[in-house]
């Protein structure tokens, strides 16, 4: 498995899209952080970029990559290796290279320009989102028969989580604003990895304001470490769950 990861990485580290992605992130980070005298504002812009672009780019790139290497996967599978190992190795390779791209493109400039807990959490969020959406891409790959359909589903998934989900949630909050829906809302948030990432950052940047709302549960959840731990745990689940499902489906998949 290690061997396959090594070679997948070897391939991806020279992949033009990965390189361009890294460079673009780096340029973006440096310009956003450098232009503004106020680091907090730059951090916010980076957060927006991360929440908006990381999921869609990751899921698209990963889905296409998995589909393009289907013949290579077959070749590997004709060797005496477990299916699970091949699949997980490919996942690890793709996830690691994209996460690496993010860590270099966003993490490095942050380290030099705005180091601090917030920056660390932002990079962590970005990396987790990368792992999650690669994981989702893998699930899409093992579940769909052809590439075109897979890409369609990937775009749909990314759009759903970046926009549609929040739209529905705010509609829900608006219509039931008079009821005690705090608990429900926190529960719902767990179903969107992007929101979880955002909440994680929110807890860093806006604790002060979050403490200002009087909902008891809300305060307990958002005002203490519980909120961060909850969000982190949910995000880890979002990495693992699609992965496990993928492995399960892939065991039975006809190539």
């Amino acid at each position: 498995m290690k061997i396959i990861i090594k070679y997948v990485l070897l391939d991806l580290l020279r992949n033009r899209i990965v390189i361009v992605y890294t460079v673009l992130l780096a340029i973006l980070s440096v310009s956003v952080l450098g232009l503004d005298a106020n680091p907090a504002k730059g951090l916010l812009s980076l957060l927006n970029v991360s929440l908006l672009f990381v999921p869609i780019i990751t899921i698209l790139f990963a889905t296409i990559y998995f589909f393009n290497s289907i013949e290579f996967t077959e070749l590997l599978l004709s060797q005496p290796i477990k299916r699970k190992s091949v699949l997980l190795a490919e996942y690890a390779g793709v996830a690691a290279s994209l996460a690496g791209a993010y860590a270099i493109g966003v993490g490095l400039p942050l380290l030099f320009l705005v180091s601090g807990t917030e920056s660390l959490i932002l990079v962590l969020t970005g990396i987790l989102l990368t792992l999650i959406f690669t994981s989702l891409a893998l699930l899409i790959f093992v579940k769909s028969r052809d590439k075109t359909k897979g890409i369609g589903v990937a775009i749909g998934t990314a759009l759903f989580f970046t926009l549609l989900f929040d739209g529905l949630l705010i509609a829900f909050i608006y219509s039931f604003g008079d009821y005690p829906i705090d608990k429900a809302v926190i529960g719902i948030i767990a179903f969107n990895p992007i929101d979880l990432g955002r909440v994680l950052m929110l807890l860093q940047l806006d604790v002060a304001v979050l403490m200002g709302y009087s909902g008891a549960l809300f305060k307990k959840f958002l005002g203490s470490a519980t909120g961060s731990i909850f969000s982190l745990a949910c995000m880890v689940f979002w990495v693992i769950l699609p992965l496990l499902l993928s492995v399960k489906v892939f065991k039975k998949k006809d190539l």
Partner: protein
Amino acid sequence: MGRVEVARRWIVCIVFSLLTAVTYAKSVRITPANNIQHTLDRVADGDTVYVSKGSYNQNNIIVRKAIAIIGEEYPVFDGGKKNEVFIVIANNVLIKGLQVQNTGRSSMTDMAGVKLQNVSHVTVSNCRIYNTTYGVYLQNSNQCKVVANTIKANSKDELQSGNGVHAWKCNNLLISHNVLTGHRDGIYFEFVTQSLITNNKSIGNIRYGLHFMFSHNDIYSYNTFENNGAGVAVMYTKGVTMYKNTFYRNWGDASYAILLKDISDSKIEYNKFTKNTVGIFMEGSSRIHVAYNTFADNGWAMRIQASCDGNTFEKNNFFGNSFDVATNGTMMLNTFRSNYWDKYDGYDLNKDGNGDIPYYPVSVYSVITERIPTAMILYRSFLTNIMDEVEKMMPSIIPDQLRDDEPRLKRWKL
């Protein structure tokens, strides 16, 4: 009365008391074996009582003469959790270098470590006052000083606890260089006028770091108010000057760095408000000059209720706040000008350092979450960014009178 004059009066007082001490001074030393009350009753005005190191299980000590009581290496006076410790009823008393601890609690009388009753020119300095209901209690006293004391308690709830420095009906006080923690209010003033409160640290008190009512013409400077249950609350007062104070990390749903209720003709300048739930909460206040302050990383930098008028907010720095300004009405009779707002993204074509388009400090999402707090969980999502942009193009929610017409592009150097 100006500050210079207050200071001059103080100097006169100090010189005067020193002179009396020099002229008639006689000194007495006591040890834990002595009964301090007997000693205090026998000495004459102007004498000095030196208290040796040790543990004195003596309390309810009444100081009836104009004497100096000076502790060596903090002799300990213990209230036994039943009584008060020192009660000063004479003028011109100095209490210095003692450790006073464990007063009782009572709902009938306010139990204090050091209580000053109807006196003037009394100084309490360099004392350690631990676990008292009230630390230093000033009652109808003038020209007194509370300087460089450490006043600590660890109260658990508001009802059973008192205040670090408590003053009622006083004037011309100097409260400086004290550290006050774990009381209900760090410093509490009621009807205290013409006083100077400076260089104190009021940290981790259950309710307010500083709390005053009907206390006109006082000056608060260089104090630090940190991590208090509800920050600082000041009410029903005019002529307050607050400058160079630091308000840090006062968090909670009813917590403010500073709550101004019915305050008028006052100045709030050069202060730092950092990481508070609300920087300044203002209600029914008028003609306050809020300038040269720094508001950083607060939940709301300011909440200004519609009941405020004639206030001026200028040349402040606002950055890293979740929301800059929130308000409960649409009318705005206050003036904002020449502030630096980090959220401003206008331009300056004529290069005068001011943005050419106005800045609206109330954001859409702050208005929305005001109505539906739960919506806060979606703050900073892509969706809310869209809302902000839409509002910028077609303003409909935010009060358009609340605006800074000449927002600064660069941060003020404060």
